[in-house]
């Protein structure tokens, strides 16, 4: 029998190449099946997109009302990266059977979460920079990172790999946003009184978030708490 480059029609007409599983080179320990099916992932992505779009919009509204120059400029960058996150989620939706027009489809997990978002967006006047930033950078974005990381651990690592890749990139930027927000808040909260304002605001917003069940509407941390 000659060495075959391509399989023939007979049992003995096989190629000479050694057989490997799709997971052997390099070794890949991922397994099929995850917690979320296509429909559940699509709904979660719409929930994620809702949160990102609202963060972008509320920060857009705030820039003109914030007196601290480095906060204005810092938010400019966060707005753009948050818009890109919402955009990536939108582009994922048609791939999850949501239709070609689903690019800008956002959906709150429930009314309590949309009310929570409105509470985060509520501070308006110039003296309220601490309240504005605390809601987003101490509570909401850390919550999103937690849920995004949870999704990546629990979803099907092969079937849902496109969502995982999107989330990995977003998580990396979100960590930068959290660090920036906390640096700014640490600088702004110089006195005990201001530190207490930050804690009070975080506690209030966190209680609303917990009551809503978070971005996907269900507490998912396993510890029964958020953040």
């Amino acid at each position, binding site marked *: 029998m000659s060495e075959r480059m391509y399989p023939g029609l007979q049992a003995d007409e096989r190629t000479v190449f050694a057989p490997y599983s799709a997971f052997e080179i390099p070794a890949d320990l991922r397994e099929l099946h995850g917690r979320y099916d296509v429909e559940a992932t699509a709904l979660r992505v719409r929930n994620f997109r809702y949160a990102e779009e609202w963060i*972008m919009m*509320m920060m857009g509204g705030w820039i003109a009302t914030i*007196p601290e120059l480095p906060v204005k400029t810092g938010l400019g960058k966060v707005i753009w990266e948050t818009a890109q996150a919402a955009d990536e989620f939108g582009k994922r939706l048609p791939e999850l059977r949501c239709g070609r027009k689903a690019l800008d489809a956002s959906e709150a997990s429930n009314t309590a979460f949309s009310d929570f978002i409105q509470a985060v967006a509520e501070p308006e006047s110039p003296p309220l920079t601490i309240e504005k930033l605390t809601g987003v950078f101490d509570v909401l974005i850390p919550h999103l990172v937690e849920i995004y990381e949870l999704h990546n651990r629990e979803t099907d690592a092969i079937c849902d790999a496109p969502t995982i890749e999107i989330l990995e990139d977003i998580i990396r930027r979100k960590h930068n946003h959290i660090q920036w927000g906390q640096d700014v808040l640490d600088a702004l909260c110089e006195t005990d009184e201001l530190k207490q304002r930050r804690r009070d605001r975080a506690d209030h917003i966190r209680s609303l978030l917990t009551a809503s069940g978070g971005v996907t509407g269900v507490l998912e941390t396993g510890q029964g708490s958020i953040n």
Partner: protein
Amino acid sequence: MKRFIPHEELARDSRFVRQDPAQATVLSTLPDDVDTVVNVFQQFAPMIEAGVQGTSAQPLFEELGPGFMLTIINEPLDADGPAALPRLLLRMHGIFVGELQALEGAARSIWDFPDAPWEFKMNMARQCWDEARHIQIFEKLLIHLGGHVGMFPESTFLFEAACSDDPAMRVAGVNRGLEGLACDVFRDMIRYAEKTNDDVMKQAVDYVLADEITHVRFGSEWVREFTKGDPEHLKRTQDFRREVDKRFSFGGARSDREDAAIPIAREDRIEAGFTEDELDELAQISGEGPSKDTLTAAAEILRDRYKAESAARENGAAS
């Protein structure tokens, strides 16, 4: 959080003071008549004087009187001319606060128009980052030239004039009016940097100009999209843009006239999506103000009157 905020509510830290935007508005309505220009600025003199107190513009006021802005705006930047550095810093500071207001305008467009198409919000979000970098760039350039933030009063008339409550007019005002003006000013700054061998300024402003061309393009595209199939809306939007362009021409200082301090950057604007017809119209609108000779004569009269009044006050106090 409410939709749409007035320019008075733009938040600033304690370094900033405001300049009454009426001055810029008046400049755009002045006729080519020396006496009228003098009378108008004479009426505004107390307000102008109060506005410059304690800022780096105070010495300019004391040197040139209430018409100092006529001299500043009307003359091309000249490194060897009188008061060259204060004039350069005044322009640089004006650009800095213009970028600040452009950031605020773009950011508010995301909040003020929640039902706008997603691509519009994406464009505005990108513009937010760009304008935020521009603020940082011009703060650095101010320091590079020996200035600092808050050294001159801030006029918020750019935000006031450009930020309409209608999305088509907002992008016409901010992205075509304000950003178009930025193209003209930045091309002029690049020329100045080349003349003075300031490579730091030249390179930085050139990058900013490239960004602004993109922002004007956003404006050109979204005006078309927001007014699609509605000729009446398009006409109102074009009328608004003409009004903004008129105000942003500072009585002819920014125009195609031979005596213009800031020429229209035609090539940059063509690349940004302006048509030749639009640029011809802009040249006509912006060139309607008083001539340079008129403004120069008015500035001299205002200066001489101010000097005489100051001398009389000093003599009265001495006796």
